[in-house]
Structure formats: C-alpha cells, structure tokens
C-alpha cells in the first residue's frame, strides 16, 4: 500500500481554510469551525457534502440533499478534472493526503463521506505543520 505522504505545510498550501471556504454559505463555515474545535464527524460530513455541491456541474444539479447513493460521475456529472479539483480542495481544507488509488475507489457521495471520516479519525490524522 502506498505510504501516505505528509500534508503540505501551511506555507506551501495554496490557501488557508478560511480562504477556501470564503464563498461557502455561513452554516458550512460554522460547521467547519465546529469540526476544528470538537472534531465531530457529522460536522465534517456537512462540510464534505457542501464541497461536493460546490464542485458539481450546474447542468447535473439534482436532489439538493445529495443522497449517499448518488454517484459522482454518472449521477452528478463530475468529470475526472472536477474530481481532482475536489480532492485538492479536501486535502487543503482538512490537511489530509488522498492518493489517486484511494480516490478511484470512491464512487458515490456516501463513499466520499465515509472515506473522509476515515481519514479524519483519531490516529489517521496526518500532523499538520
């Protein structure tokens, strides 16, 4: 299995979490602040769903609640570049590393939520500089 690389250092990361989320609705920014303070998985879930919505092509916007069964490519219209954009965004936001092999296994919104939860679980968190 590929060894996880360390996250980008703050100085090398292109944008801070505050900057990354500045165009997001206030409740999403609050959820992220709560997650940073208490690390409740459901707060991370809400942020992840907002990030999916933010990267989703407008032409495929459907159910705004984004059920877990929605497939990123087939149902939501993501292309591989939008998935890459989203992966970078999540890496920078949560200070995690996501490999190409890992993301290729993520097909649905539910897969992504579970995957990010796993990445953020105690013991899995990469230390941030």
């Amino acid at each position, binding site marked *: 299995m590929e060894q996880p690389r360390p996250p980008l250092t703050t100085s090398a990361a292109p944008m801070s979490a505050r900057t990354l989320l500045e165009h997001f609705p206030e409740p999403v920014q609050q959820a992220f602040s709560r997650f940073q303070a208490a690390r409740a998985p459901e707060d991370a879930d809400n942020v992840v769903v907002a990030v999916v919505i933010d990267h989703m*092509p407008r032409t495929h916007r459907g159910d705004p609640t984004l059920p877990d069964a929605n497939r990123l490519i087939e149902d939501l219209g993501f292309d591989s*570049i939008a998935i890459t*954009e989203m992966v970078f965004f999540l890496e920078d936001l949560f200070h995690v590393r996501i490999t190409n092999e890992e993301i290729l296994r993520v097909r649905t919104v539910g897969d992504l939520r579970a995957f990010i939860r796993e990445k953020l679980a105690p013991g899995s968190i990469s230390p941030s500089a």
Partner: protein
Amino acid sequence: MSRRAVVTGLGFITSIGNDRPTVTAALRELRSGIERVEYLNNPTLPIKVAGTVKGFVVESASWRDWKYPSQYDFPREALRSLSPHGLYALCATEQALADAGLGRDDLTDGNTGLYCASAGSVFMIHHQINQLHLSRGERGNPMGVVSSIAGTLNFNLAARYGIRGAVSGFVAACASSSHALGCALDDIRLGRQTRMMVVGAEDLNAESVLGFAAMRALSTNPDPALASRPFDEDRNGFIVSGGATCLILEEAETARQRGAKVYAELAGWGQASDGYNVAISHPEGIGLSDAMRRCLADANLTPKDIDYISAHATSTLAGDRSEAIALRSTFTNVGARPLVSSTKGLTGHPLSMAGVMEAAFCAVALREGFVPGNVNLVTPDPACDGLDLPRASVDSKPNVVLNNTSGFGGSNVCHILRRWESV
C-alpha cells in the same frame, strides 16, 4: 471566388464599451476608454494609463472571486478553465451569437468552425507556476494549463459551444486575430465551412502590460486624454488594452437563406512579412505595403476603390511612421486619397485582439455609415504628409474599407470589407 463571406454577428468587451451600441456611439463620438491605472501597488511606475475593461472584477487568479456583468450567467464548469480574457471572450461570444440569431444547436453540425487569437494568460501562468514552486511541485490547479496557455480560448469556446468544424488558435502577437479572420475567410471560400466564429481576446493586468514597458514600447504620458495619439508628432508609445471581440462570418448564401442581418462583406485579405526585426517594423513599411497590395488583389480592387483605412497605428514612433510610409507608397503615390484613422487613440492597443476588433469596427462603420476620426491627433508626423487624417468622425458612407494589422516579427495582415446592400 464564387463563395462570398459576410459578417452577421458582433460581440464586444472593449475599453470603449461592452456591447455594440455603446461601441458604435464611442467610435462615432470619439469617447475614449483609456483611464488611469496603477499596477503592482507601485505608484512610481511610469505606466499610468490603460484601455481598461469595465464591469469586470478579475484581479484574482481564482474564478470564484470574479465578478462580471449580471446579464451573463456562467456555471462553474465553464468558469473553472478560464483566464480573465477567456471570461471576456465568453461574454463577447454570447453577444455575437445572439446578434447573429444563432443558438448552440446551429453550431454543432461540423459546418461551423472557430478560430481564436490570444497570447494566453501570463497572469494565470504566473500564478500556476508560483503555486508549483511554493508546494515544491506537489500542488497545481488541475485547470492551470488549459486556462492559461495560448490556445485557451479555442479549448474553452469549442467545448462550450460544441464546435465540431475547424478549430484552431493563431499566435502572431498583434496580428494574430487578423490571421484568424483571414483563414476563416479562406475556409468559407474553399467550401470547408459555412460559418466561422472568430474570437480575439487579451487579459489586461500587470503581467500583460509591464513586459511592454520593459521594451520601452509604452507611452509614459500620464494623461488618459492624450497618451494614445497615433500619427501625432508628440506620440511616445502605445497604451495597452484588453477585452474580447467575437465576429461571426458566414457564407453569403447561407446567411441569405436564414434571413440573417448582414453588416458587411469580408471581400479579401492579404499578408506579408517584413523579414527584418523581431520587434520593430521595417522603416519603409515594405511588409505592410506588400500585404495591402496582396489584399487589394485578393479582393480584385485597386487603391482608388478604398474609401477608408482603419490603420494599425498604435502610437509608437517607429510603427506609425512605418505605416504612414507604407500608406503613402500604396495610396498617395498612385493618386488615391482614402480617409485614414486609427481607433487606438480611443481604445488603446489590445494586442492579439486588435485585428478582429478593428475589423468589427469597420463592419459597424460600413453598416452605420460613418468613419471614426483620429482622436488626440493634433500635429501629424511629417511622415503622414499627403494622408487624409480626419480629426473628427466623418458622416460619410464608405463602400470599401481596408483594415491593417501588424505584429512582432514583422507580420502584416490586411482585410478589405465592403458594404453589403442586399443578400
């Protein structure tokens, strides 16, 4: 040539207006688009003015921060791969298609092509490369390449509008969009395409401007009302501009059958190079003279048939003089005396976009029946002796106009547009 080509749609994001009526009024009434600017928060820079693009906020390299006029509504999947000039181009193209009465479904059968011209976005490249260096190669914008390199316009517009005909980009500095327009005419004449979208666009930011200051090519005159003064004895360099122009060119019979409004016929084009210097025009304008002669021959016209010349003159010492000499040798010396003006006194110089923008201005002038004047021209350079350079716009009805463009490396491209009475 049995197949003729006509201009049926125009779209503008320019320093003098973001729609055709505003641009037309500015050309007729000589309303300048040049304003004071400050780049890199450095008030000591000698470059004080530019032909600014109004109504857009594109200082950030992230499309999420951009603001643009509210009549346009683009989804993230369109915005994510754009540079600032790509956004301008999308707006101009939406205008031109609406003006021509065309929808996306009219463009996707392979009979419509798309030729574009821009220098790419040095601004976006700078941010992309800076991010790569900061992250030691571990992070880049997935859209960094397609939003920035020369070709970004054709990548984005072809995908957005589903173009399946000829698609390409042209890179010849300030002559680029004139090459695009000339090759578009050839494709229609040769029967390869029935419709061509021709788009020129450029960013306007420190990265697009200050490289020319390093060449000492820009005016250091701080007065927006006087800095760009083509053909004037007191000119001291050009003023950079940006924006986008889209011109829809159609085979004339196709345009007639669908009842399209016609601005003008694109009757011919010609090109020739100086073979002289990487950045300076030939002092006698030999390449431009040859390009004008070839253009006249292509349109089967003589110098005396030309009523108006839209000059390339950018307000540089060498370039304007070279063009004036070329105009005298081609026209004055054979007894022809067309009106001559450069609209860059109003707009500044939008680099790759100049050729198609000024061809579009010519189409407007032919349809509306006027000739734009030479704003800011007070004392013509003696090299202009014998040229008819009206200061104010002229309410004449030109029938045939010539549009000149020149670029780095000595590329010279000319077009002739002709009044179209009926289709």
